């Protein structure tokens, strides 16, 4: 990526990025443009460069921030009405780490409200359009992040991935998108969705940029007790020999152009001397059902804090406290937020807990075990990210189950906590990007990024 120096100023980089953001306004990518703040920071960095000071590994690099990362710059709304007017008094650890290295946030980007969705159509601000076809969705939930990078507005964007929210939009827009190992990057200051699967990651144009961002963002944070020690910077990329493909995903439910792209990459790997191993992972078939029990259960708990009392939107149509809660929550949440909260309450209700929540937690064990078994036979797994390339706007938004099926091949990783990297893998005949997903065992993030270079063409 382009980093500011004595010849190329940070102000130039930021001005160019802001100009591009405005040029592509009709894609509805940004929920907030940080013009003044970004230019001020850029000039400060330029002044430090002029003085010969150390300015960090991301000096003057413009980036886009998914709207569920807290920082005092602009309102943090998670693209939800209920957080309207909320300007955070605190800064997320991930944001702080990036900015300490000189990165400059030029704007906040659109997403499905509270990251509930796979198309960015569930945003209070309306959908973000696909970078390659304006009639199609950007993917989701981090749709704005993916399109901002794909249209070359910014060098990188942040994302969150609870069930595919980085990897699927990356594949729909032809960029790299990494969901790291669970616990790799601090989630302090990021709007919580489902605490046992939420991960923070990035969208980039190259594996090298991804490696740089990971080396900056990963590591233990005393403000997030679910962070691991900094294994990323303390590990070396290991060489792979065997790559697995999942037989259970090789059927008509996956678009034939995506299957063709997967086959092509397998041939490429074989020509480079790698062995392709066929895997049977029958429990993955149940991952989506387990996911849409476990995640809503956690969502219902995490989203109970939004009640209109302490921050954000408050309904002004209530005569007592009970009404303040129920009116604020009814008016402030999007339909998909409500569905997930209600399903969460359903699966946790007495009488249904054993049949749904406990059953899903047991299914999760089988999924974790299946990955462990698979990685005893191969170093990495290569699979599609989603069953199809970017679909048309409006095509699935009124059919929640059809939208959930988008996540069928991305959610198993989150349930197991393993990392996954979306890599660009060509285009369909109609010119839509195709992405494939490279999956590795826990803590293999560095090797995964390194290995993805073997698949580039």
């Amino acid at each position, binding site marked *: 990526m382009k980093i500011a120096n004595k010849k190329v100023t940070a102000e130039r980089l930021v001005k160019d990025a802001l100009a591009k953001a405005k040029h592509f306004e009709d894609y509805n990518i940004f929920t907030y443009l940080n013009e003044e703040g970004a230019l001020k920071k850029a000039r400060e960095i330029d002044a430090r460069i002029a003085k010969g000071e150390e300015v960090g590994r991301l000096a003057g690099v413009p980036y886009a921030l998914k709207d569920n990362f807290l920082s005092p710059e602009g309102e943090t709304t998670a693209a939800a009405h209920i957080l309207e007017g909320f300007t955070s008094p605190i800064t997320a650890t991930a944001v702080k780490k990036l900015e300490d290295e000189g990165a400059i946030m030029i704007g906040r980007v659109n997403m499905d409200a509270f990251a509930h969705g796979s198309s960015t159509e569930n945003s209070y601000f309306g959908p973000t359009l696909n970078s390659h076809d304006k009639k199609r969705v950007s993917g989701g939930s981090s749709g704005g992040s993916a399109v901002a990078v794909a249209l070359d507005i910014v060098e990188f964007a942040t994302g969150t991935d609870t069930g595919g929210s980085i990897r699927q939009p990356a594949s729909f827009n032809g960029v790299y998108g990494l969901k790291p190992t669970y616990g790799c990057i601090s989630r302090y200051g990021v709007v919580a969705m489902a605490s046992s699967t939420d991960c923070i990651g990035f969208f980039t144009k190259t594996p090298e940029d991804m490696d740089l961002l990971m080396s900056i963002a990963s590591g233990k944070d005393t403000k997030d007790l679910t962070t691991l020690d900094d294994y990323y910077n303390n590990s070396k990329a290991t060489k792979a020999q065997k790559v697995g493909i999942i037989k259970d995903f090789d059927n008509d439910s996956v678009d034939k152009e995506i299957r063709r792209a997967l086959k092509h990459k397998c041939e490429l790997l074989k020509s480079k001397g790698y062995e392709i191993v066929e895997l049977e992972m029958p429990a993955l078939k149940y991952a*989506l059902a387990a996911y849409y029990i476990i995640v809503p259960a956690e969502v219902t708990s995490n989203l109970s804090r939004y009640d209109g009392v302490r921050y954000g939107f408050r309904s002004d149509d209530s005569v007592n406290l009970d009404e303040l809660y129920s009116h604020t*929550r009814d008016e402030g949440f999007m339909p998909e937020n409500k569905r997930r909260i209600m399903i969460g309450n359903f699966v946790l209700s007495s009488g249904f807990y054993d049949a749904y929540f406990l059953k899903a937690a047991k299914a999760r064990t089988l999924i974790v075990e299946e990955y462990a078994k698979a990685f005893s036979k191969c170093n990495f797994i290569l699979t599609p990210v989603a069953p199809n390339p970017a679909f048309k706007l409006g095509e699935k938004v009124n059919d929640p189950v059809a939208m959930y099926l988008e996540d069928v091949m991305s959610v198993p990783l989150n349930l197991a906590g393993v990392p996954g990297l979306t890599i660009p893998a060509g285009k369909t005949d109609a010119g839509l990007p195709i992405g494939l997903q490279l999956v590795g065992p826990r803590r293999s993030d560095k090797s995964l990024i390194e290995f993805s270079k073997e698949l580039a063409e």
Partner: protein
Amino acid sequence: MEIKREDILHLADLSNFAISDAEAKSLEKDLGGIIKYISQLDELDTENVEPTYQVFEMENVWREDEILPQEADREALLALTKEEKDNQIKVPKVL
């Protein structure tokens, strides 16, 4: 399991949503479809399988019980609420 209107109203109540009749109607259809989908877990054999609730590699992460400086002070937090009086958040009457 078949989801009925009264189940929807009960779940809306648990979720603290003051839903309209029109919303209840569409939720009945949507939640019915979702519950039908997730019910397919029934066919998975989980006999003698222990549940997994989290995939973090550690349990019981301890830290010293000490007060650390906070980024946001009382004033900054109170500034976020709609109505404030005498350093307290004001809400409509409880009863």
